[in-house]
């Protein structure tokens, strides 16, 4: 009997260790191609991606669960004909469930719109939607909505361990419990 209890306890310890170990991992993660919302990749010229629509989507391929993670994005870009740029990570099954973070605002920009800008944005990931292959949906939003043009030179995505808030943790648990799954 005691052997059975020890067996269950050890199995649970191995399970928790396997789950907890990736939570402390950090590093750069691969970004997919930058596409329109219809899945058509944006054109690139001399190493720059020219974004000509309001929305630009890319996948970030994580190697761990989103729990206790922050995403740090470093974006090199040329704003050209946009007044505001923001970025967000998809939060739930609705296709446009993003809470965008503004990283460029022309009214407070001291540089020329034709200069290369560099911005670092940190996004908490715990309450974000993670696909079954562990990827996340990243979306850039440009304003004004009609005929914006801006260039992306480079986007670097890093994940770092972070302590989530109570609300983020609650949303993470809810997303696992209420996820639609095949029986």
């Amino acid at each position, binding site marked *: 009997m005691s052997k059975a209890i020890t*067996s269950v306890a050890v199995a649970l310890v191995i399970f928790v260790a396997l789950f907890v170990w990736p939570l402390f991992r950090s590093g750069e993660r691969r970004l997919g191609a930058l596409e329109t919302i219809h899945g058509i990749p944006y054109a690139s010229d001399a190493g720059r991606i020219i974004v000509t629509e309001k929305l630009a989507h890319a996948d970030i391929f994580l190697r761990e669960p989103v729990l206790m993670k922050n995403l740090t994005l470093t974006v090199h870009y040329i704003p050209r004909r946009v007044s505001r740029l923001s970025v967000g990570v998809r939060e739930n099954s609705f296709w446009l469930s993003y809470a965008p973070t503004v990283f460029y605002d022309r009214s407070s920009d001291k540089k020329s719109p034709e200069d290369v800008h560099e911005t670092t944005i940190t996004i908490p990931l715990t309450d974000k939607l993670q696909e079954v292959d562990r990827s996340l949906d990243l979306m850039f939003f440009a304003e004004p909505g009609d005929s914006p043009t801006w260039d992306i030179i480079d986007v670097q995505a890093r994940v770092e361990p972070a302590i989530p808030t109570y609300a983020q943790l609650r949303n993470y648990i809810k997303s696992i419990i209420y996820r639609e799954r095949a029986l």
Partner: protein
Amino acid sequence: MMKWLSWTLLLTTVIVAMARWFHPALFTTLELHALMGLTILTALISLMYHTNQHG
């Protein structure tokens, strides 16, 4: 000892498989397959040892 270890690993594999059913992003297929492989390996070693002991 090997028999106990193979039962423990089998139990771990079942728990991990259940967690993956809840959300596939919690564990990778590779982790699940590695656990399955380790379980089969320890079960085979345990069986060989048992066979040697009893004839």
